[in-house]
């Protein structure tokens, strides 16, 4: 089935409850091809032109869920939402970026989904299309943490992202120079209007993590009206703060025994998060 509008797609899903929607297919089709998934029917979302672009809406950008990573990586998009563009450019080899979509990244909700920490840091809102023209709004974090789920026949139609007109960064560490899955990723977003710093860490947990205390602490140190730059020690402390918040030490045992130590691999991830957060904030404030 290849519907041409969002409502047609929703109607198709409602009519065939066993059908599975497919956009870029970069995750879904590998499962189908390896025999792990045998959907009764597929509803292709590739023809729905209304969700393949974006528009402005009172200080926000309304991004279609069908935007590909390749499209989001282009300079015009990067001028609007730099961190999302950086994440899209880092999201894999060109073949994947040409096919994979923003909505697919959200719905697959892989821990290593590159767009997810950026959306979490931007506090994006999802516009979900439901049967009979119903529309509801869900914060992206609610969907990623499972607080709210997609109901039968529902599709992510758009993603509403605030336009902050300030530097943003997305940094990702992989095991190699070529494209690869993130070992850890960090998105840092400045919000000068609200005098806030928002940061999200990806790939270290099933969903992006927000180190709220570290954000508030560092935002209070920034001279928002003058030179925003911070001393290197402050950036380092921010990195460590973020890393400790996302990968805490195991709690000391109640009986007062020896405190367990994190394994070396976890310590390396923590060190990586600290480095990425320090560099990310430093570049955003430079």
């Amino acid at each position: 089935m290849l519907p041409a509008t969002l409502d047609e797609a929703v109607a198709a899903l409602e009519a065939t409850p066993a059908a599975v929607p497919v956009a870029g297919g970069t995750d879904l089709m590998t499962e189908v091809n390896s025999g792990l998934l045998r959907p009764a029917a597929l509803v292709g979302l590739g023809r729905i032109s209304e969700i393949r672009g974006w528009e402005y809406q009172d200080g926000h950008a309304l991004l279609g869920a069908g935007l590909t990573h390749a499209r989001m990586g282009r300079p015009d998009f990067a001028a609007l939402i730099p961190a999302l563009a950086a994440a899209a450019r880092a999201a894999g080899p060109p073949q994947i970026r040409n096919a994979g979509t923003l909505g697919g990244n959200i719905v697959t909700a892989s821990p290593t989904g590159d767009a997810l920490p950026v959306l979490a840091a931007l506090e994006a809102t999802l516009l979900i299309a439901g049967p009979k023209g119903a529309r509801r709004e869900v914060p992206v974090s609610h969907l990623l943490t499972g607080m709210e789920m997609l109901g039968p026949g529902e599709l992510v139609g758009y993603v509403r992202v605030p336009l902050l007109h300030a530097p943003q960064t997305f940094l990702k560490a992989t095991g190699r120079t070529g494209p690869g899955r993130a070992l850890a990723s960090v998105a840092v977003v400045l919000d000068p209007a609200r005098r806030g710093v928002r940061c999200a860490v990806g790939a270290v947990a099933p969903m992006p993590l927000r180190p709220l205390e570290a954000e508030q602490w560092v935002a209070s140190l920034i001279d928002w009206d003058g030179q925003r730059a911070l001393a290197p020690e402050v950036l380092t402390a921010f990195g460590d703060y973020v890393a400790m918040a996302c990968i805490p030490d195991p709690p000391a045992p109640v009986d007062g025994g020896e405190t367990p130590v994190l394994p070396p691999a976890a310590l390396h991830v923590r060190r990586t998060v600290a480095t990425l957060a320090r560099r990310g904030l430093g570049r955003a404030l430079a």
Partner: protein
Amino acid sequence: MTSDAATATPAGGVPLTGTTTGTVNPASAAEPQHGLGSSLPPADALAKTQGTFPYAADLWAEGLLWAAVLRSPHPHARIVSIDTSQAVAMPGVRTVVTHQDVPGQDTHGRRVADRPAFARDVVRHHGEPIAAVAADHPDTARMAAAAIAVEYEVLEPVTDPEKAFETEPIHPDGNVIRHIPLRFGDETVTGEVIVEGLYRIGRQDPAPIGAEAGLAVPRTDGGVEIYTASTDPHTDRDLAAACLGLLPEQVKVVVTGVPGAMADREDLSVQLALGLLAMRTGCPVKLAANREESFLGHAHRHPTLLRYRHHADAEGRLVKVEAQILLDAGAYADDSSDALAAAVAFAAGPYVVPHAVVDGWAVRTNNPPSGHLRGEGAMQVCAAYEGQMDKLAAKLGMDPVELRMRNVMATGDLLPTGQTVTCPAPVAELLTAVRDAPLPPLPKDSPEEEWLLPGGPEGAGEPGAVRRGVGYALGMVHMLGAEGTDEVSTATVKVNGPVATVMCAAVETGQGFSTLARQIVQDVLGVEEVHVVPVDTDQPPAGPGARGRHTWVSGGAVERAAKMVRTQLLQPLAAKFGMSTELLTIADGKITSYDGVLSTTVAEALEGKELWATAQCRPHPTEPLDDTGQGDAFVGLAFAAIRAVVDVDVELGAIRVVEMAVAQDVGRVLNPQQVRARIEAGVTQGVGAALTEHLRVSRGVVRHPDLTAYPLPTALDAPEVRIVELVEERDVVAPFGAKSVSAVPVVVSPAAVAAAVRAATGRPVNRLPIRPQAAVMTRR
């Protein structure tokens, strides 16, 4: 240029013609257009590049059935029962086979027949075949395989090779496959300076671009034809025939195009399953493995644990090397015995060592199977002895290159096996060449060039945290089979008019054999158009494509056969002209006398006759290593020196190999273009082993057998390969004086990368692949 020449006509496919116009860039204008020393491109290059070349997975036969193999989900378990009734009852399923249906010998193996065709009472590794299904659709076959009910009694897997010595044997043959206790010189000598090290090498996978596939067609005489990308068709035929209860003549293995081979290409269990299913159903049966089955089925590089102690005097001359080498062979012996011999014999590297005490073991575990993979044994020890040389240099406060220079081996020196190195061993010259090569510019010196930071163009790299390191490594590998293997090859050359044809069962695996065969015949017979016929087991055996042996033995056999044809061709002419055949030359299809007075064409000289000749080439014999690891076990050795330049982001541990400068002992360059390509490929594979390639296993179960979790080097990871020098000292015993090219870079590259990361970070780096946490410099 050469006319179209079809060298590979896969069975059932159309003859492939590659138009070979001047698209390659010859190294120099003086390079010949054809014959030895030219950069003749492979005849199938165009078809392969355009994707029209048919591989085994593209084969099709009328009324074919599809096969699927049921593989063990457990690394170690007792099979209580196998119930195939549900699978057999499924519509579309034609037959299901298990160990009960194997008509012949129920075990097979290259060296020792220790591997069951299908698991009978015990499964010994994750992915071991248990049953196979033939059905009219691939999905039906897979579903039927999944419907086979196997009751397992899960056993504790042996996954630590160090524990394999004490545990209950996992195989009736015992857990120790081979132990070589090498003793050379005086065991009791000690040096003034001693350095110790413990090294671990990971499990590299050959990861061929095309997964295993094959088609079996039953024959009316009760036999079977198997179409597959075998790299050793005659061995595969003999093993398959024994298991299928047939005579070797009743099984014909036809080699299709080989989609990548760094090892023994085909998992024999696939061929056995296909043969058995075809015989049972009387229909052609096809199987195309998916990536997961490919990772589970074929052999990997031996994960190795190495403990070293180097003794040297105060001037840095090596006194004694002590080593303990433990190879994890997986559950079955395969080629582990050969890998162990190479590891033990080359334990000290291309250095003069007066005394050596080396103990090597290959042991069984329930980990994935290990076997032949380019430079097996030699690669693991190279990473260790070069790590030791760096350690020794640091302890003595010497330059690592200077320390190596004081110890390098040359022709006439002894290996720790007591064998004298008789072939050219220009080790010092190689090391000098890479040392003196100019270093790549630092990015700050070339501001206009974008600096590709470790971590990639969209990565998190920061120039301030990047340290550059330069590291050196020397290494060696043996050529041809070792320890008394009969390395014979047979070839036939035929000339008919202006066209020559080569028949030789040496498989073109991508190593360039068929191109070389064309070059040899062009050289000897002056015929431009040379065809190489597809390989099958009706031809006499040429042995496996490994360790540079086809250039040597099969190339040698082709040359001899071509020379015999040449004599047949020239003798009547020589008699007519009243001169000996040596005074006649053949070039560009013309026969000319030495003084240029007499001249005729090859076609005329043939007078419509067809000339045939068959010849064999067999290198000088070798002997097995004795019970103290002594013996002349190797036919020849090849050496290389590599200088690695790496950039390391020392906060993230991200590593990028900037450049690999290679100086290699090649004997003689037979095809410059191919030699460059082989070295670049070998270096890239070595960089993969150094940085990312390790098949993860947890308690014997392979984790994520796919190419996302097993990162092969991409174009961004592959370094700039600079070939500094190809030393052409001809090896007099080799047919063309040429040495093996492909394996040495794989052996030396990982050690060079490790040395460079050591230099950049000051960290010890004693494990491959190098994990990011091992390349981090702790802050503050």
